[in-house]
């Protein structure tokens, strides 16, 4: 049982490039989330999904897109990378939402130059 896995661990992008951050969970959780963590700031919710085919915006969705075609996978897409997207990105999952613990992956560190 690997839990939540994320790839890549680290990536450098040039301004305007695109990339997809991968997230997979093997706990059969319905809910999945993408957060970003910046120095001195709390984790901020980017997008979340309540099940395959259903996604919704979080607090800071601009510049990102998501899709959820399977229960296990929840990729995060950056279409035109900007320096403001330099951050550490965490994927999380939970069985339900109300009062349910979210389990986090190891993170992807992204640097946009």
């Amino acid at each position, binding site marked *: 049982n690997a839990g939540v896995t994320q790839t890549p661990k680290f990536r450098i992008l040039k301004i305007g490039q695109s990339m997809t951050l991968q997230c997979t969970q093997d706990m059969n959780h319905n809910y999945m989330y993408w957060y970003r963590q910046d120095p*001195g700031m*709390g984790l901020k919710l980017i997008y979340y999904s309540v099940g395959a085919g259903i996604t919704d915006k*979080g607090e800071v969705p601009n510049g990102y897109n998501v899709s959820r075609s399977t229960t296990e996978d929840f990729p995060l897409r950056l279409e035109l990378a900007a320096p403001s997207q330099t951050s550490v990105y*965490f994927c999380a999952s939970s069985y339900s*939402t*109300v009062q349910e*613990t979210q389990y*986090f992956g190891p*993170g992807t560190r992204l640097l946009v130059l």
Partner: protein
Amino acid sequence: EDQVTQSPEALRLQEGESSSLNCSYTVSGLRGLFWYRQDPGKGPEFLFTLYSAGEEKEKERLKATLTKKESFLHITAPKPEDSATYLCAVQGATNKLIFGTGTLLAVQP
């Protein structure tokens, strides 16, 4: 607006020196308060969930308590391996987690 404030920002303790971390919150309809531990370069690791004022939970040297306005994470006789950033988050009526900025704890041998 739901809000979480953690204090202090950083705390340095000697091994064996007990202390407490604070998490103050304002939230509409508290559904849960979560404590996580985060090691450098790693994702947050779940520690506790507290659901109502007066509730307490313990795990090894850690004890979390909850009132209507704040939560404390008490660390008894800490060891160097307890060094980490401790994150607090609340879940209110929106069902989304609102995180604090964390307390960086360093325990020196």
